[in-house]
């Protein structure tokens, strides 16, 4: 009977995830998955012959309070940090379950269980420490640029080998100590693995850590022999892996390249060409926008940094009031996690129908009067299409240069994350408006109203 109820919980997870796939049903899907979780928790509490409730009730209260405060207070611009932190907590939970089992049984496992305990410790701990390094990078507590040591890959290889060695030792000898050493080494591996990865690659890293948190949960399921954990963990592992692959494709990079190349952040400011640019004022931009028939806004990470989503939406509405068609084009890796820009624009009440993805956008730029770029750079860099010497050559871009006029709002001419110049800025049809994203939107709106 209990097994059937766990299966019911797993089915609710699957249905919930399926419904998360469409805007119409997504919210109900989330509720369905949550009710599956509640079912699994209640079944466990009734069934597990719990002897001491103190630790459980304390843990539930503390955890629910922390989770609720984080979830309800986080700014939408900080969503990548929150998801990174939640991935980390998920990894930590799996590690702790494995450790509790280790202490309870004093490592007297069968070889099978010993192996999954070792795997759970390794994967859970790497997820934990890697996620909190990613969190630190996103929060700006740790520099976002790649930070590698000489021989970084050799160090990581030694750490990974250490995990395997301690795992084998623990299983063969049946003692507790090597399992704890796995945790120590895996902590270092997570830190050393994520430190060399740059900020703009975070969409891939967060997706991968998300996937790992699922796999860690599944390994915990093997330890306690619970199919709901195995199914739930496998689903999350698959979801994270799909996103990881899609983000990699959106950058035309393999996962190995993202993890090991230390891409980006190379300060090549010296290579900035001294070519002239067309620099405009708020009035110039307002005139270009106000007399257009169609405008597409292209947001990037700079929009999140400047908290400019509401100001952008207000400008968009003012343009719509003038009878201008306004849409928003979002590159898959714009921002710091998959779908980051979509969430910000949804927060600012941009209707779902006006959010275009890469494939919907590119055919439309040719018929668009003005493209307004706010805080995006590498994802609109024509070198990725035209210059086979460019480090980002082959990455699919938003082909904004097909529009009649391109307006770029940017604080300075500094290169994007990839550290390469963007020829788009020097085109005749391009107008640069040097300003903070939010201030720029407000100034343009003011000018527009006095047209």
């Amino acid at each position, binding site marked *: 009977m209990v097994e059937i109820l766990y299966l019911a*919980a797993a089915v609710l997870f699957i249905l919930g*995830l399926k419904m*998360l796939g469409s805007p119409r049903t*997504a919210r109900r899907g*989330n509720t369905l998955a*949550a009710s599956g*979780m509640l079912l699994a928790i209640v079944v*466990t*509490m009734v069934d*597990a*012959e*719990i002897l*001491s409730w103190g*630790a*459980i009730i304390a*843990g*539930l209260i503390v*955890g*629910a309070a922390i*989770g*609720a405060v*984080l*979830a309800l207070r986080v700014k939408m611009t900080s*969503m990548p940090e929150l998801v990174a932190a*939640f991935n980390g907590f*998920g990894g930590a*939970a*799996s590690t*702790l*379950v494995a450790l509790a*089992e280790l*202490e*309870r049984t004093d490592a007297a496992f069968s070889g099978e269980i010993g192996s999954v305990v070792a795997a759970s410790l390794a994967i859970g701990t790497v997820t934990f420490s890697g996620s909190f390094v990613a969190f630190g990078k996103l929060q700006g507590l740790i520099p976002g640029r790649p930070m590698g040591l000489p021989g970084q890959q050799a160090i990581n290889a030694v750490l990974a080998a250490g995990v395997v060695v301690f795992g084998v030792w623990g299983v063969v000898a049946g003692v507790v100590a090597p399992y704890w050493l796995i945790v120590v080494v895996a902590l270092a591996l997570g830190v050393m693995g994520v430190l060399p990865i740059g900020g703009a690659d975070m969409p891939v890293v967060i*997706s991968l850590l*998300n996937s790992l*948190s699922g796999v*860690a949960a599944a390994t*915990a*399921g093997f*330890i*306690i022999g619970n*199919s*709901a954990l195995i199914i*739930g*963990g*496998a689903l999350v592992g*698959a*979801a994270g892996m*799909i*996103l990881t692959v899609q983000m990699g494709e959106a950058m035309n990079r393999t996962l190995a390249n993202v993890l090991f190349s230390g891409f980006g952040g190379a300060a090549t400011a010296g290579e900035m060409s001294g070519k002239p640019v067309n620099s405009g004022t708020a009035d110039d931009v307002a005139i270009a926008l106000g007399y257009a028939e169609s405008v597409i806004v292209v947001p990037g990470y700079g929009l999140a940094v400047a908290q400019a989503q509401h100001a952008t939406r207000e400008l968009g509405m003012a343009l*719509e009031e003038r009878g201008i068609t306004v849409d928003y084009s*979002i590159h898959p890796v714009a921002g710091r*996690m*998959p*779908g*980051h820009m*979509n*969430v910000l624009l*949804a*927060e600012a009440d941009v209707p779902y129908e006006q959010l275009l993805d890469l494939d919907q956008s590119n055919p439309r730029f040719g018929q668009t009067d003005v493209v307004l770029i706010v805080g995006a750079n590498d994802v609109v860099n024509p070198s990725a299409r035209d210059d086979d010497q460019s480090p980002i050559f082959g990455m699919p871009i938003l082909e904004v240069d097909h529009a009649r006029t391109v307006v770029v709002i940017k604080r300075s001419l500094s290169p994007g994350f990839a550290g390469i110049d963007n020829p788009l800025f020097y085109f005749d049809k391009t107008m640069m408006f040097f300003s903070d994203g939010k201030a720029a939107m407000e100034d343009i709106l003011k000018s527009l109203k006095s047209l």
Partner: protein
Amino acid sequence: MSAVFISGIVIFVLAAFVGLEVISKVPPTLHTPLMSGANAISGITIVGALAASGLGEGTAATILGFLAVTTATINVVGGFLVTDRMLEMFKKKPVKRDG
């Protein structure tokens, strides 16, 4: 390998394929809520945490169990709440055009 362990592997592999099928069609605009919702589901570790911390065998296991319940609950409660908060913003709104 024991039969229980093998059936665990079977369940894992099949569930992973179900996940790939179900999720591969999610539009990019819902990627963030998908991820935070999936994250909440990975909090299913709470089942293991509850079992581990309720057995009441020794101080170390109890402390580890308490920490496991706490972190898993953060994941579950925080994950589902923040996903709901985001999806509320995605719901269809009447287009405001007062012009």
